[in-house]
């Protein structure tokens, strides 16, 4: 029997709103994961410019005045961090020190300076900080990882990935990179199961209303070559649009989790159903198993921070950078 887990939500990003939709008392029964029996959805008032109190009440959420009240609530076992990336280290630290299991999407810290004080606290609370990777959270992404690691493709040779956040929902963590870059690089790292040894990066010009593009070519220690594109805010689509194709010596596997969105056609034109209706919020299912799996959050964070700096160096030098 799986014990119900009581969740506190901190922040008001798209992920949190999707979870309120999915797990809140007003949500359709069939959408609620069986592992979540009760919960206390709390939100940070100052982080809710677009989520008015009456909307929060509609979902049966408890609105608190201070975010620390969520942590102090004895009925809350776990918290999900959906704040701006800059606020995450403080929230993570407080959650860990209050004994909560902390679920947080990438990035948990944007810079080495933000990570250094948090790193020893994470070390003192092993297994308590769990990473949410948006792509791993999809059924397709998890299937691809499983297939590759089970040897279903033979030896992995090349990977192509496009990670697009069409509406720019994920914030930029530097002039060239968004938090989606972290999700993408972590997913690729899990897929290749090897550290990157060389990276080349190119970024498109930032034009008004135009997309922010980051093109990456990576070679990993096990000789896998990855071509990746991380794009945010390009027009012409309304949701996430990811595509990953892994090629091995014995097979190939292609996923496009969000291309199965519905297209809604009406007299006003056509639109695609937003990603919140898609498969991107399933990371709790399966009894709250950590999506980070066997990954060491500390070493992975450190490794990705180094890779991020290499990407920035590549952009500046306009050449490949060895790691």
């Amino acid at each position, binding site marked *: 029997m799986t014990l119900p887990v009581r969740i506190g939500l901190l922040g008001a990003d798209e992920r949190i709103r999707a979870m309120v939709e999915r797990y809140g008392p007003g949500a359709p029964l069939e959408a609620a994961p069986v592992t979540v029996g009760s919960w206390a959805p709390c939100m940070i008032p100052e982080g809710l410019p677009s989520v008015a109190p009456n909307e929060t009440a509609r979902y049966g959420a408890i609105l608190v005045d201070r975010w620390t009240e969520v942590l102090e609530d004895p009925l809350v076992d776990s918290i999900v961090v959906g704040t701006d990336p800059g606020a995450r280290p403080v929230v993570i630290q407080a959650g860990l020190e209050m004994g909560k299991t902390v679920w947080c999407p990438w990035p948990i810290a944007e810079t080495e300076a933000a990570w250094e004080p948090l790193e020893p606290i994470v070390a003192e609370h092993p297994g308590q900080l769990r990473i949410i990777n948006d792509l791993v959270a999809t059924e397709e992404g998890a299937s691809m990882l499983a297939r590759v690691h089970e040897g279903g493709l033979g030896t992995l*040779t*090349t990977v192509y990935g496009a990670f697009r956040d069409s509406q720019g929902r994920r914030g930029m963590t530097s002039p060239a990179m968004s938090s989606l870059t972290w999700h993408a690089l972590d997913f690729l790292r899990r897929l290749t199961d090897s550290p990157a040894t060389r990276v080349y990066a190119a970024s*498109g010009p930032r034009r008004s209303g*135009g997309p922010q593009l980051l093109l990456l070519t990576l070679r990993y220690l096990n000789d896998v070559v990855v071509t990746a594109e991380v794009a945010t805010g*390009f027009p012409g689509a309304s949701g996430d649009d990811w595509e990953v194709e892994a090629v091995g010596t014995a097979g190939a596997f292609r996923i496009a989790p969000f291309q199965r969105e519905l297209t809604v056609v009406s007299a006003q034109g056509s639109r695609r159903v937003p990603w919140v209706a898609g498969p991107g919020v399933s990371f709790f299912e399966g009894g709250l198993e950590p999506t980070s799996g066997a990954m060491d959050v500390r070493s992975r964070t450190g490794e990705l921070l180094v890779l991020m700096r290499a990407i920035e160096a590549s952009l500046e030098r306009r050449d490949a950078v060895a790691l």
Partner: protein
Amino acid sequence: MSVDKASLQFGTESRPEPLRVGLIGAGGIAESAHVPALRNLPGRVRLVAVADPNGGRAKALADPFDADYYEDYRALVQRKDVDAVIIATPERWHADITTAAAEAGKHVLCEKPIAHTLADADRMLRVTRDHGVRLMIGHSRRFTARYQALKDLLDENAVGAVALIRENERRARPASDGGYWSPGHWTADPAQSVGVALTNGIHEADLSAWLARSEPVRIYAEAKILREGGKVPDFITWTITFANGVLATSEIVNGLPPSYPAYHQLEVYGTEGALRAKDHDMQSAVCYGTEGATHPISYSALLHQQDTYTRQLKAFADAVEGGGPLPVTPEEARAALYLALAAQESAERGRAVKLAAPTGEPPRRLRP
């Protein structure tokens, strides 16, 4: 170049004197692409002779046209009744054959890439110019209906300022009985082929520059040999930065399992929209078996195959007979070769290659 709607009625056009053509090379591309194009333009062009060191193959292609055949191309180019030749041989022979044809006064439609070195490309430009004959390189994607339509949309500013061009290409690893990259095929022979950068990548190089409408300034590439025992790269991925800020990226894989669909994926992102053309979104047939799904006709159903070579041949014939501009100039084909060779150099060095302006000095190893 705009879409030539009239060219959809290839077979109905007739002129008193069809362009008399000799076909040099009777391999896969000749049989699958050029011969059907010749067949589609019966009143416009006439196949006079075929040459190939394998006389049997030359005869097989020539017979349905009541054409002659030779084992030595030099005999073909000396014929008085040949106006133009189509060169469909491995790229390392392009310059020698073009030189012989031009010296004999024949116009030349040559398979891509223009040559395997810039020195050979320059020789081809020089000899055709000196002898007053036309030289067109078969960058066939430009004659694909969908790419022409996409180009028209870009010219009409349909997506605003272009930011990204992606053209990916997927093909299965070679079958045991031959074909590209298989042991014994010229594409897998380092004496005749430098690998994927020219065999496939030349298409992407030309297409990217065509759609970007700018000069490339930098390229970075990674390449690999995917097939066991291979001697030349059959995988390459690259990123091109153009002078106008456009980024273009291509990933070309020739190592997919046989059941995987062959496909092209072109995407263009602009400030106000996006264009996409993906073969795998238009699967014509999928066969689900106990071993999984297969795509039995995906290669033949690739949209770039349909009528492409007929459009190309007709455009060449029009330019030769009408004296108008060539839809693909030799200089553009040389630029595509320069770009593809730069990609290969980048992959070998693990460094980005800074590209010279068209009239400038190319990188050290790329100098003719």
